[in-house]
């Protein structure tokens, strides 16, 4: 067995190399690791936040969640994290030098085809697409960056430097266009003769983008999220109509999602039961 493949499946305990505050609720955590830094845009790492205060045994605290990589070069890579649940809240207490368990890179990332690209990001979905943009500098890349409010925007300055055009949307319209990232996709596609659309964000937004791209006949790819236990393609919990999000994804082609009736409709909770996507 390829030793590289094995090493990707093991939890590696890495000290946090650096922490950068992107906005009030988003931070980037940098790590040094040769293997994980080989990550491709759209691939993910499992991040274990090892609550380390013994001897109080609290089984509800430590957890490991899948996260997109936002930057990678040589030996260094970063994950960009929004504080939203127990695990991320715990991670936000961590400082430089504290240990975090990293597994990966895992899964299948984006595959770029074409010259004129459009990235559509909603919320923390900007992390994965920011990485893609850095890797596709020689292409003509347009970016739609959607956030709920101006305060929740991040990577705005970096994206303005990297992309041919940047369109910002906020739910309240206090910054950029009022509405969702998906609302402006058709316009941008037609204006810039887009060859391919890459999308990462809330699934309802992605489903809208999927529908728009289908109508316009533009190839598109989507980075999906499902509750993951193993992240290694063995437990089956992240199944999407027979696809494993952790192994066959997280990035899927529109053609694959055509066959996935639950896309945009249902996700799987911690029990494995299907629940509607809100």
């Amino acid at each position, binding site marked *: 067995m390829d030793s590289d493949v094995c090493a990707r499946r093991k*939890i590696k305990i890495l000290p946090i190399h650096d922490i950068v505050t992107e906005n009030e609720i988003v931070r980037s955590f940098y790590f040094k690791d040769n293997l994980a830094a080989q990550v491709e845009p759209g691939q993910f790492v499992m991040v*274990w936040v090892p609550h380390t205060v013994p001897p109080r045994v609290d089984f509800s605290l430590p957890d490991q969640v899948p996260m997109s990589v936002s930057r990678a070069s040589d030996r260094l890579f970063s994950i960009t994290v929004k504080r939203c649940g127990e695990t991320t809240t715990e991670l936000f207490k961590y400082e430089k030098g504290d240990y975090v368990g990293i597994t990966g890179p895992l899964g299948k990332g984006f595959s770029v085809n074409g010259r004129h690209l459009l990235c559509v990001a909603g919320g923390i979905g900007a992390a994965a697409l920011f990485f893609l943009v850095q890797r596709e500098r020689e292409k003509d890349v347009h970016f739609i960056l959607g956030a709920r409010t101006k305060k929740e925007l991040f990577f705005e300055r970096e994206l303005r430097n990297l992309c041919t055009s940047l369109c910002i949307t906020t739910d309240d319209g206090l910054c950029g266009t009022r509405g969702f990232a998906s609302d402006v996709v058709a316009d941008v596609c037609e204006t810039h003769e887009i060859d391919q659309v890459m999308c990462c964000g809330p699934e309802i937004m992605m489903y809208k983008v999927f529908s728009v791209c289908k109508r316009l006949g533009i190839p598109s790819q989507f980075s999906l999220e499902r509750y993951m236990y193993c992240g290694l393609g063995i437990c089956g919990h992240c199944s999407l109509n027979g696809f494993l999000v952790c192994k066959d994804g997280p990035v899927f082609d529109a053609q694959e999602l055509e066959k996935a009736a639950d896309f945009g409709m249902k996700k799987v909770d911690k029990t*494995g039961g299907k629940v509607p996507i809100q």
Partner: protein
Amino acid sequence: MDISTSLCGIPLRNPLILASGILGNKGALLRRVAESGAGAVATKSVGPEPREGYNNPTVLYVSEDIVLNAMGLPNPGCEQFAGEIETAKTSGIPVIASVFGRSQEEFSLVAMAMEEAGADIVELNVSCPHSLPRLKGLHLGQIPVETKGVVKRVKQATTVPVLVKLSPNVTSIVEVARACIEGGADGLSLINTVQALEIDPLTERPMLGNMVGGQSGPSIRCIAQRKVADVLTAMRRGELEAVPVVGAGGIESGEDVARYILLGCQCVQIGSAVLKYGLDAFSKCLKELEGYMKEKGYETLEDFRGKSLEWLV
């Protein structure tokens, strides 16, 4: 060459069964496993009501040969799971429903629901640490008299064959096997995972979310072979009523499959090999098994089943 076999009267196109706990929580995934060549598939263990798993890490890849897990039996409950059995059944191969409960009543209730949904065989997961909570520290499968009671109750409530998956974490696996057979079990599958623990030296703590778990992968194959041999030897000597035995533990090649058949197993279960080889694990093992049989000049599994057991009886 004919590698077909049968399990408790149910024909199987080959002896490879997807072990419970692997990709078995959705019918669509079980169908994919069937398409990849498995002879039968077992579902993830299903209980009476929805249950969340433990916090992550739930699966730990310690090395190429050591996999630890403590999933915590996540499942949507037998009512919602029935649809998954129906989907899995469309694959055309036998579907084994793995069942757990906290009492005899719950075991039989879930087993009945699974039979109703179309399961061809029920496999009782008695190695579940959450069964019978009053017996703190022990799981059901470690107490022969309790195991017998559960098997008996399930047999009364169902008509499909009942397998019991045995835990290796007992003083005498033969005594637990005896209890199952006395309770009316139609077959036995063994072994479940071996109790295990991993510590991370840097964070100085257990790595699984549940702290402790069970070990699988090639590192347990020889342990499993010994347990399987203990049970089959007792059967061959007439000390234990003979029922079909399904071997499980660390199988990842055709030679490994042959090893269990040589010990006298009717079929085998493959689990952790899916981590290493993906769904190709089944076609790989089948091709290698056929290669082995060709080299040895065997036409059917019967030609070599139990040959190695002769050395042990």
